[in-house]
């Protein structure tokens, strides 16, 4: 009986269309972010839009312009008030977002978490790379590039959780695997080129033998590159940055930045929407009646992977 | 023997560069009205600030009710029963009249104001001055004279033993002044002591019991009012006698310099027409709030107007903004020198230079030497008591500030000069000088309009008098009609005549 039940649901929902993976154009899925203006989300949303196009549904990008818990919670609530078909959300803060995510689920709106998770919430799945792991990857790359010796510094924006985690992963990995490398300073670049350039210059003064810099954010990467160049130390000081915006990629190509950490942003958006769609249309049914039995219909945790982009593979990214 | 309410001994106060007071002693007894007189900058206001705790003396002793006290702040003085009306208006523009009056002493219940009761108290006092505004009006909407009344009432509501008035009537009409005097006499009869500062001799002799004179910060002496004369007091004040306060009348040319026709701008300026001849001093008189200021502001483009033509030297001119008026040589001196006239935080030089910017510029740069010469000339011509032309205007005495304001316009060769209460707060000597100066300018062919609330000044100075009543021209008087009674009749609206064209 369970079999018949679920097949009837399936047929009724996809009825009229040629395939199960075909939605209706007024079916709207939202991507909710914080610091919504930054370039990073564009990769995620590009993936979501690609999926939306394939599925014939609508994808809308929105979020809180500032790094502000209240703003993101409010935006999420406002989106819920519109009863969308599903929400892809990245949480500025896991704890603070948990109740609203649950509120959406309770209202029957499927929610998938991407990039920054809210693990305690009832979201169906999380797609992303742990920022700690991304930091570790950066450390591994820089550690090897420096041959396991030398002084390195970190430039970050303190107080932003995802960035803090990258720093944490970086430092832990360095301490664990590269005892010859010293993390001499963690400085505030405030996600701003001018500020980062100032801090980097001062770092270069303070540590004349500085061999590497890890920047947890893209604007900090380009700012640091400029300062290193102004000091005439391009190449001498290896910079590992984060994310794959045009400026960073160009800087890699020209050798001002040695490498950057690329997260699987496109995949987060693409598979995130696929998950939402599958849940919405009840296409994924690992067990019958998963709703009642508490079984997750989609893979609960998906690692979208980390790639280190260097001069050797930068062209692939530049062509996107 | 009456009790001494307030005594000061050997008071000295030095400002960097000026000794404002030197060894000044003073005594105020129960039931007396004691005048404090002196030229502009003699140190009167400074003395009063010291006895009310707003300034600290460098040396000397102050006694209140027989006890030696140290006043650290105005609060101390207030608590010991000294109330003061300061020379410079010290009101709160954004706040209602009643809260201004009852600042610090509003009737309260559990920390909250009792508005009804406040209103009653204020109305009671304001009624004595027959004012037309309500206690809930914002002070910034009142005219200068109305504000002065508020300021006075503010002191009167305080239950004090000593009341101090620093030039309370400088912006008041004669009626309001006499209403104030009634109140003062009443206070006197209750055994209060009153210190009264004024440059108006008639008031002093009408009202006060004793006169103390200061000159250049030094005590000249204290005399019984009844046993002295104006001439004696003037001599004490300035060290010489002043022959005459008003210059000879001029002989204006027949040529009409300025003609205003059907000027309309709100309810305080309705259908105003008048003319001004070359070389003439036209006095403008009216009761408080009659709209004299509004008429002149509308005429000179300060305030927008709804209609009206202005003909200058036979040619119609378009005046829509102050700059237009200035371009045509029509200058307006505001009555509100502190708020609208002067740059208190800037030097005398800067204050004078502002009206000459176009002439002081050479290739866009300010010529400092010429600016200094100009300022020094103003200081000399108007005998401004100042250290030099770089002294900040805010640190000048009230009268000297007024002189700077006149100077900055006079030095720019006007064709028509409009002065709103130009001699407010100016001492006898300086007043005579300003009158001479105005007459001299008139004789050079300039047309001068003087708004004044002082009837004697109007009569003494003007060639003709334009009387304003309730926003309209009640009449233009000349020759023998130009006397106190007739002018007052017109001003009170008793002689409602067709405006003279």
């Amino acid at each position, binding site marked *: 009986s369970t079999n018949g039940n679920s097949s009837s649901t399936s047929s009724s929902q996809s009825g009229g269309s040629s395939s199960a993976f075909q939605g209706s154009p007024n079916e709207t899925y939202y991507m909710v972010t914080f610091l*919504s*203006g930054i370039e990073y989300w564009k990769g995620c949303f590009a993936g979501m839009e690609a999926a939306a196009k394939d599925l014939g549904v609508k994808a809308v*990008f*929105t979020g809180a*312009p*500032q790094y*502000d*818990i*209240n*703003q993101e919670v*409010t*935006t999420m*609530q*406002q*989106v819920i*008030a*519109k*009863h969308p078909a599903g929400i892809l959300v990245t949480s500025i*803060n*896991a*704890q603070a977002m948990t*109740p609203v995510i649950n509120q959406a689920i309770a209202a029957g709106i499927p929610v998938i978490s991407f990039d920054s998770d809210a693990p305690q919430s009832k979201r169906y799945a999380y797609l992303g790379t742990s920022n700690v792991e991304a930091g570790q990857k950066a450390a591994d790359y820089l550690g090897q590039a420096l041959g396991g010796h030398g002084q390195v510094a970190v430039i970050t924006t*303190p*107080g932003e959780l995802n960035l*803090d985690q990258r720093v944490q992963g970086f430092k832990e990995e360095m301490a664990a695997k590269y005892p010859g490398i010293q993390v001499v300073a963690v400085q505030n670049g405030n996600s701003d080129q001018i500020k980062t350039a100032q801090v980097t210059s001062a770092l270069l003064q303070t540590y004349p033998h500085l061999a590497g810099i890890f920047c947890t954010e893209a604007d900090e990467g380009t700012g640091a590159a400029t300062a290193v160049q102004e000091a005439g130390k391009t190449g001498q000081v290896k910079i590992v940055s984060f994310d794959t915006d045009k400026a960073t990629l160009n800087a890699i190509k020209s050798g001002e930045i040695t490498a950057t950490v690329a997260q699987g942003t496109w995949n987060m958006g693409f598979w995130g929407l696929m998950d939402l769609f599958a849940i919405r249309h009840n296409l994924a049914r690992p067990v019958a009646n998963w709703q009642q039995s508490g079984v997750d219909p989609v893979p609960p945790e998906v690692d979208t992977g980390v790639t280190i982009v260097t001069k050797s593979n930068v062209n692939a990214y530049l062509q996107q | 023997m009456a009790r001494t309410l307030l005594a000061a001994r050997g008071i000295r106060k030095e400002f960097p560069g000026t000794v404002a007071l030197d060894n000044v002693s003073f005594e105020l007894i129960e039931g007396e009205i004691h005048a404090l007189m002196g030229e502009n900058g003699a140190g009167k206001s400074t003395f009063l600030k010291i006895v009310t705790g707003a300034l600290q003396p460098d040396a000397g002793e102050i006694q209140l009710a027989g006890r030696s006290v140290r006043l650290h*702040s*105005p*609060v101390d003085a*207030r608590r010991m029963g000294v109330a003061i009306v300061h020379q410079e208006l*010290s*009101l*709160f*523009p*954004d*706040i209602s009249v009643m*809260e201004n009056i009852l*600042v*610090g002493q509003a009737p*309260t219940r559990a*920390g*909250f*104001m009792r508005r009804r009761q406040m209103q009653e108290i204020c109305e009671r006092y304001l009624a004595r001055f027959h004012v037309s*505004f*309500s206690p*809930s*009006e*914002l002070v910034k*909407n*009142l005219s200068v004279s109305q504000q002065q009344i508020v300021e006075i009432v503010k002191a009167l509501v305080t239950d004090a033993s000593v009341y101090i008035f620093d030039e309370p009537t400088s912006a008041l009409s004669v009626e309001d002044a006499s209403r104030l005097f009634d109140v003062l006499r009443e206070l006197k009869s209750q055994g209060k002591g009153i210190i009264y500062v004024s440059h108006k001799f008639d008031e002093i002799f009408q009202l006060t019991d004793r006169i103390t004179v200061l000159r250049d910060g030094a005590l000249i002496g204290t005399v019984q009012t009844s046993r002295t004369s104006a001439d004696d007091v003037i001599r004490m004040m300035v060290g010489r006698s002043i022959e005459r306060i008003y210059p000879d009348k001029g002989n204006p040319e027949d040529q009409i310099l300025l003609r205003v026709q059907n000027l309309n701008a709100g309810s305080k300026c309705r259908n105003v027409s008048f003319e001004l001849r070359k070389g003439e001093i036209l006095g403008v008189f009216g009761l408080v709030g009659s709209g004299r*200021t*509004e008429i002149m*502001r509308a005429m000179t483009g*300060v*305030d*927008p107007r709804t209609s009206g033509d202005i003909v200058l030297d036979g040619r119609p001119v378009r005046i*829509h*903004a*102050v*700059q237009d008026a200035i371009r045509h040589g029509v200058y307006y001196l505001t009555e509100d020198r502190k708020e*609208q006239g002067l740059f208190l935080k800037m030097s005398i030089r800067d204050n004078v230079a502002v009206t000459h910017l176009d002439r002081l510029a050479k290739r866009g740069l300010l010529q400092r030497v010429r600016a200094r010469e100009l300022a020094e000339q103003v200081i000399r011509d108007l005998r401004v008591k100042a250290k030099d032309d770089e002294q900040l205007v805010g640190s000048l005495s009230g009268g000297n500030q007024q002189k700077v304001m006149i100077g900055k316009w006079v030095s720019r060769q006007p064709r028509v000069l409009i002065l709103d209460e130009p001699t407010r707060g100016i001492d006898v000597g300086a007043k005579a000088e300003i009158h001479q100066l105005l007459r001299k300018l008139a004789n050079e062919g300039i047309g001068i309009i003087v708004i004044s609330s002082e009837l004697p000044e109007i009569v003494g100075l003007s060639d003709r008098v334009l009387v304003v009543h309730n926003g309209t021209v009640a009449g233009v008087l000349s020759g023998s009609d130009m006397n106190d009674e007739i002018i007052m009749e017109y001003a009170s609206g008793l002689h409602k005549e067709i405006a003279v064209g």
Partner: protein
Amino acid sequence: MQPTDTAPANIQNERESWLRKVTRIRELTIVLVIIVLCIILSFLSSSFLSVDNIVTTILSIVMTAIVSVGMTVALVSGGFDLSVGSVMSMAGVVTGSLALNGMNVWLAAVFGLLASLCSGLITGLFIGKVKINPFIMTLGMQGVVQGVAYVVTQGAPLSVTGVPKSFLYLGQGNLLGIPVLIWILAVVVVVSDFIMRRAVVARKVYYIGSNEAAAYLSGIRVSKVKVWIYIFTALLAGIAGILTLSRFSVAAPTAGQGMELQAIAACIIGGASLTGGEGTVLGALLGSVLVGIVNDALVLLNVSVYWQSLVTGFVLIAAVTLDVLTHRKKTS
């Protein structure tokens, strides 16, 4: 060319109860702007007038509005407080970390408030007694207080778990179907409004803002009142911080960032002026509401995030221009 705004002659002098009339009318413009905006929005988006959305919108402005009430007092006095945002985060962080270390959360909240009061006291003393410019003083305190929040948390947001339900009720509970936070806001606004209009101590703030020298000469202890002003401002910011903690169970050192400008904007939209002497609590509330509605509309109407700040800026200017044009109110 028109006369400058400070020229007194501009002001109309009308009949009785002028003051109250204009005050009402002035706030009425914003009320009208808000109403018109609501009508337009309800046509553009069906969910705008839903109960959920209204509650969400009000909830989103609770903190801004509470902080704005404090800011109003500073603005009325002719001052300024740029440290409110960091005081807000510090209060939350102090409370949170004490609670995490085992202290009863209510007691911890008292310490959080005390820390805020301390910051307000220092600000007030420097501004009132040493006579430091409020802008630079509060900008400095913004750094110091934010620094305290960073040092306490070492940058990481504190997740506060296991605190008593009674505390969470403040930020997450409902009373008569309406979130407790909204009730709190209502109480703060009504009480503060009454105090600012009627209490003698609050009127002193208006005196100081209107003419500081005259206030001094009238026997008002200007320095002392100023100290209290900044204590009050900090107190409200502290309350907002603790309520934020209660609402999200998270104390982030970045909470409240940018709050100062939002609050000042709300106050000025509501009729306060940076030169002091003007401003009401009601105005601050209405200003916050207007900003809240605009933010809500951006999401509801799916305005592209890249257009949002443009639209917000535009609406801000439009609202104030409208207000100025209808009242030709003095600015400077």
